């Protein structure tokens, strides 16, 4: 294939990619997924905490898989769409809840380990018993703080939460009508244990403890042989629902601690997005004017090149969004804005080199071929250096800055594609025709073209 044919082919390929990109990303607000910091919602990084005496290495991948499943089940019960739970490194989970309204409640739900135990109150230290009784005599829904069993107290539970087969929140009927309750059903082993225990201990107090916090401390009224047990603590409706969810989904195999929690109001993120897009467009406009003033026709080609670049970039983001592997965050927008400069840079390198090679005595035609080639090599060097930094950031850094690194890398890829499929073939084609005819329009000084015979004899080879 001769170079001319190849160039037309490359341009055609570029056009197809640009059109494909537009099909992909229009309308951008629907096709490019927005991150939580833009659409609003709650993002939590939960880190597994080793139990006392354990080191971080003792947290197994199996534990984390189980924890991921349980947290996933819990957030699904929140009823929000597009929730996601992902592993982050060896010991952390990233939980994303877009559009969640009551962020405080959601936080409580995912932050709870969910270790439920039935504890014989008389086995607890006297200070704790006193605290439980004081709280019971003064309880009101959502009122005074619940008693906590201190971490150094060792106790033996009668029943454990993993024996619970189902839990539902509701309201009790009968004597305490209207009180919010959680009703439990348990497996046969637990039913047996519980029947024996309640038969032997009528009149004694049992504390129902979730993650060492006493939820309720009823006295056993009569033997419970069916296994169906009603807890009527001082719950609000939300608290009862949360507790039921936690009991249904099971207790976590590891203690998870919320480490990086970001909640963003719905309109706040949108206004940040508008600011970012506004800044990007104004920046793009000024750069476009600058390029045209400085490089005339070549500048105009560069501006179209920026359009090609932006199209490919948005198309790529939409493509990745469609596969669910990309969401645009604010740091991502910063990365995109930086890559506008990057794409303009590579156009400038090409224009400068092209001008310079003509100035040094090459024909427009050969300057178009060798100038673009050398400039692309130089640009690729610049791109690689920036890409390396972005990659290091993407791999090693934690938190939202990964979004910045990712868009920076994607932008670099689009920049390279733009240079190879658009800038070089187009300049080579135009270099043989219209640029040669009227160089001034293209920002190339006429005397440079006119003087080429003299300069060529001097053997002036351009090098950059």
């Amino acid at each position: 294939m001769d170079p001319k044919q190849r160039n037309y082919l490359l341009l055609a390929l570029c056009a197809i990619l640009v059109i494909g990109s537009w099909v992909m990303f229009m309308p951008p607000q629907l096709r490019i997924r927005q991150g939580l910091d833009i659409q609003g919602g709650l993002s939590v990084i939960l880190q597994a905490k080793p139990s006392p005496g354990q080191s971080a290495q003792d947290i197994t991948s199996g534990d984390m898989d189980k924890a991921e499943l349980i947290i996933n089940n819990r957030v699904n019960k929140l009823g929000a769409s597009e929730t996601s739970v992902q592993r982050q490194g060896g010991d952390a989970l990233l939980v994303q809840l877009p559009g969640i309204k009551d962020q405080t409640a959601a936080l409580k739900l995912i932050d709870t380990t969910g270790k439920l135990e039935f504890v014989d109150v008389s086995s607890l230290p006297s200070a704790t018993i006193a605290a439980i009784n004081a709280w019971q005599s003064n309880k009101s829904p959502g009122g005074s703080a619940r008693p906590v069993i201190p971490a150094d107290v060792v106790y033996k539970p009668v029943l454990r939460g993993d024996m619970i087969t189902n839990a539902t929140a509701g309201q009790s009927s009968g004597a305490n009508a209207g009180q919010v309750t959680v009703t439990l059903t348990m497996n046969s082993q637990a039913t047996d244990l519980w029947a024996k225990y309640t038969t032997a201990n009528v009149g004694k107090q049992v504390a129902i403890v979730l993650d060492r916090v006493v939820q309720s401390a009823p006295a056993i009224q009569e033997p419970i042989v069916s296994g169906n047990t009603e807890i009527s603590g001082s719950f609000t409706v939300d608290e009862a629902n949360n507790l039921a969810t936690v009991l249904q989904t099971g207790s976590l195999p590891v203690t998870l601690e919320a480490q990086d929690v970001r909640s963003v109001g719905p309109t706040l993120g949108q206004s940040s997005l508008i600011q970012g897009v506004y800044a990007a467009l104004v920046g793009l406009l000024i750069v476009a004017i600058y390029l045209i003033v400085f490089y005339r026709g070549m500048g105009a080609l560069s501006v179209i090149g920026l359009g090609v670049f932006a199209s490919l970039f948005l198309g790529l983001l939409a493509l990745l969004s469609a596969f669910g592997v990309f969401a645009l965050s604010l740091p991502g927008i910063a990365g995109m804005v930086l890559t506008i400069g990057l794409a303009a840079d590579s156009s400038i390198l090409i224009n400068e080199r092209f001008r310079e090679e003509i100035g040094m005595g090459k024909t427009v035609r050969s300057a178009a071929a060798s100038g673009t080639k050398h400039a692309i090599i130089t640009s690729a060097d610049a791109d690689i250096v920036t890409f390396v930094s972005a990659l290091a950031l993407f791999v090693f850094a934690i938190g939202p800055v990964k979004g910045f690194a990712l868009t920076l890398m994607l932008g670099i890829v689009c920049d390279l594609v733009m240079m190879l499929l658009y800038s070089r073939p187009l300049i080579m084609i135009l270099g043989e025709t219209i640029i040669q005819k009227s160089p001034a329009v293209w920002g190339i000084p006429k005397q440079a073209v006119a003087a080429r015979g003299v300069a060529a004899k001097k053997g002036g080879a351009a090098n950059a």
Partner: protein
Amino acid sequence: MHKFNIDFMGHRNIMFGISLVLLVVAIASLGLRGLQFGVEFKGGTVVAIADSGSVTQPQMTDAFKAAGLPNVVVQGSQAGVNAKAGFIIRSSETSAAAASAAADKAIKAVGLSASEKTVTTIGPNWGANVTSSALLALGVSILAILLYVSLRFEYKMSVTAVIALVHDIVITLGLYALIGWEVTPNVVAALLATLGYSLYDTIVVFHRIKENSQGLVKTSYMSMANESINEVLIRSINTTLTSLIPVVVLLLFGGSTLKDYALALTIGLTSGAYSSIGVAAPLFAMWKEREPKFAALAKKYANAS
């Protein structure tokens, strides 16, 4: 052709002087005022409220203190494009549930809309993770870049390029210390990105010097290097400007997260463009001129330049 003929090398002591003053100011700021690290590095809570309405700063402070957040510091945030004046509230609270509940309570107490806020809470031990991972990213990327430069260019270039990089990092961080802006992971990321840029500016100059030095007989290394800088000056100015323009626009119009990036990028890009010509190239040329071959040339053309 647009071409300059500025005697950079002749005035290198002035440029070194400027850099020295900037470095002294930066190091003094870092030493005396120190850097203010964001909650991501040390743990704590930041609440941003988008629209302050008619609530005053003391009212806001009281509301958050009353809601039970420890060590409350309230700052006003400026109005911008599509944004009203708001508040940024910082606290040392590291429990997300407590911080979120307290923020709801305080905002309700002053009568503002609870949906117009962001709450970020970072656990006490998480900061160490963030810090070590940021340092790791910084270290690995600098090493990788150095390796790349060393493979493609000679070691004297890598060493002087690194001096210019350190120059840029110190000046950028010094400015953060001086104006008291918080250093967040965003700032570190932006700084890292500008290092690549800064380094590349330097490489372009070196590239030209290297090519022009082949078969050098008619002039001294120093004046050839000066000529090389002038040859790439337009390109350097243009690429720096086109990179700076969008970033400066972001600095002017962006919200707080975007401003974080924009300021570090603006300083880093500016300092990077300057250090290539003002620091890296003269140092490199001075070093090269000590090689016997070029020392002889320097002696020969000492009076001519």
